[in-house]
């Protein structure tokens, strides 16, 4: 957005220069030459225009196999994230898996321990759902107000894709769950064999064994050839490169559900199994790092989502939270998916603090940062969903609000 605002200004400048310099005729000629020149040939797998530069952001790391890459939310339009820009969170690198060799083993407290090939999984009845996936640690830097300079750094561990796969319940029924089983221990085939405990009730409800993303096979970085997709739950539980499901009578208290992804409260107790991602929204234009070229009307826009269903309403403040105006929502509003909101706004060339809050179908209202901190303190680390405020300065640049 910043770039487009800048480039339109550049275009205006160029146009002026062209007219005064008498170069208009020459420019028109160049444009004609471009259209009369033969383009590049057809290709087997598409690439975006070389003029498009949006990329994921990754922190420098001595161990690049573990870490996160953030989706460039300010550059996204609509409600889907391209697979190539989907956020990543890996703990031991991206494995290279031959789908012909890959098997999913279902074992533990089942009547018939099963071994399934990818071809066999693809034979089973499948469903497709558009779902948001958000890292449990997304916007974690907001707790301590060490906010990212832009919306990619502050909120980029969330993406939205169309996922295709087989309901996990169907496969578990094939194996026959034994009485007394209450948990499914999922394990990935990456080097650290990522492990999470999933309650059986959720597994029998709406979890997908997903092999497709946005119309093609899941990308290696997203778990090729098979991963869990758990609607509304923190990203870490959506185990990638899935090769094992073990039915048990107890949670296994894996490292990533005890030492990590638990929420430490001010009294020293930590909340465990905090799976749900509550309603959240963020303005992506104008947002941190962008600059408005001058006073005038701008369409504010951003993304809202909730792990608990549909986004019912999004409200926008342009006066630091004193008053709120309902934004227009893009239809269809799918449950647990990005919902784009929009609102025209007159920037008068004066300092303004803007923000958005989402209200989901359960009636839940996205809280302020202050309300979250009052209950949870600043050391809980995960599941931050506070209202994000941006300051639009009189001169047009947009920054984080100092808190």
């Amino acid at each position, binding site marked *: 957005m910043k770039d487009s605002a800048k480039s339109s200004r550049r275009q205006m400048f160029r146009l002026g220069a062209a007219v005064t310099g008498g170069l208009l005729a020459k420019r028109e000629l160049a444009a004609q030459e471009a259209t009369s020149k033969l383009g590049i040939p057809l290709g087997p797998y598409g690439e975006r225009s070389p003029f498009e530069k949006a990329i994921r952001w990754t922190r420098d790391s001595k161990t690049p196999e573990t870490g996160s890459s953030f989706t460039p939310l300010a550059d996204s339009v609509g409600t889907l994230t391209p697979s190539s820009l989907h956020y990543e969170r890996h703990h031991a690198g991206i494995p290279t898996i031959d789908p012909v060799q890959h098997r999913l083993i279902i074992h533990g407290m089942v009547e018939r321990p099963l071994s399934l090939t990818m071809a066999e999984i693809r034979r089973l009845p499948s469903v497709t759902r558009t779902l948001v996936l958000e890292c449990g640690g997304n916007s974690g830097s907001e707790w301590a107000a060490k906010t990212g300079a832009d919306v990619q750094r502050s909120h980029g561990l969330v993406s939205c894709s169309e996922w295709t796969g087989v309901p996990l319940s169907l496969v578990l029924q094939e*194996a026959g769950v034994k009485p007394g089983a209450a948990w499914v221990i999922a394990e990935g085939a990456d080097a650290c064999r990522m492990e999470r405990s999933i309650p059986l009730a959720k597994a029998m409800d709406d979890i997908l064994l997903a092999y497709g993303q946005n119309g093609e096979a899941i990308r290696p970085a997203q778990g090729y050839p098979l991963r869990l997709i758990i609607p509304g739950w923190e990203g870490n539980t959506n185990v990638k490169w899935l090769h094992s499901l073990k039915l048990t009578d107890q949670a*296994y208290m894996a490292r990533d559900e005890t030492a990590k992804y638990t929420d430490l409260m001010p009294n020293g107790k930590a909340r465990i*199994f905090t799976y749900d991602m509550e309603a959240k929204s963020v303005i992506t234009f104008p947002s941190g790092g962008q600059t408005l070229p001058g006073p005038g009307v701008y369409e504010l826009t951003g993304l809202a989502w909730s792990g608990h269903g549909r986004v019912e309403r999004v409200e926008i403040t342009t006066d630091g939270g004193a008053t709120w105006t309902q934004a227009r929502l893009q239809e269809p509003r799918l449950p647990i998916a990005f919902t784009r909101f929009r609102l025209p706004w007159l920037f008068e060339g004066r300092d303004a603090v803007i923000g958005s809050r989402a209200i989901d179908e359960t009636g839940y209202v996205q*809280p302020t940062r202050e309300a979250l901190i009052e*209950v949870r303190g600043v050391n809980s680390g995960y599941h931050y969903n506070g209202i994000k405020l941006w300051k639009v300065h009189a001169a047009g640049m947009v920054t984080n609000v100092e808190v």
Partner: protein
Amino acid sequence: MWRFSLFLCCAALLPAQPAKYGVGRPATLDEIRGLGTAIAPDGTGLPEGSGTAAAGQELFAARCARCHGDKAQGGVGPVLVGGQGTLATAKPLKTVGSFWPYATTVWDYINRAMPFDQPGALKPPEVYALVAYLLNLNGIIPANQAMDAKTLPKVKMPNRDGFVPDPRPDVGRKR
């Protein structure tokens, strides 16, 4: 709802339902064993073998200190010692000793994910030894107590009772 209850009654009375699609083949014991050992907090899954802190100290210096520091004080990898008593303060230090609720998780995680650049390379006695070393370093077990499939699940971690269920929605319900 009644249908669901009826289903549960039937499920309890009747033998398990047969597979509907019959896709896939029975998993072999080798396949299941090949998935490695996921360890339950009650010790289910722990293999044979044992190890002591002394053996663990040597292994740690050779295999772990490069990332975690020679005294487990942290480096490229996280700090593994200290922090007890800090969880309710402004600067909580979450370590194996101060935060992890189960010793079995330490075994499971080292076994599945460490060393970072060579996961799965450690033999069970080596994993027991490293766990014994870390637990001793954190003042949780004496230096001479060997860790094995029997003793490890009995270790009570200092923060065993430090976890509570998710109470959300706790914020954000009212306008």
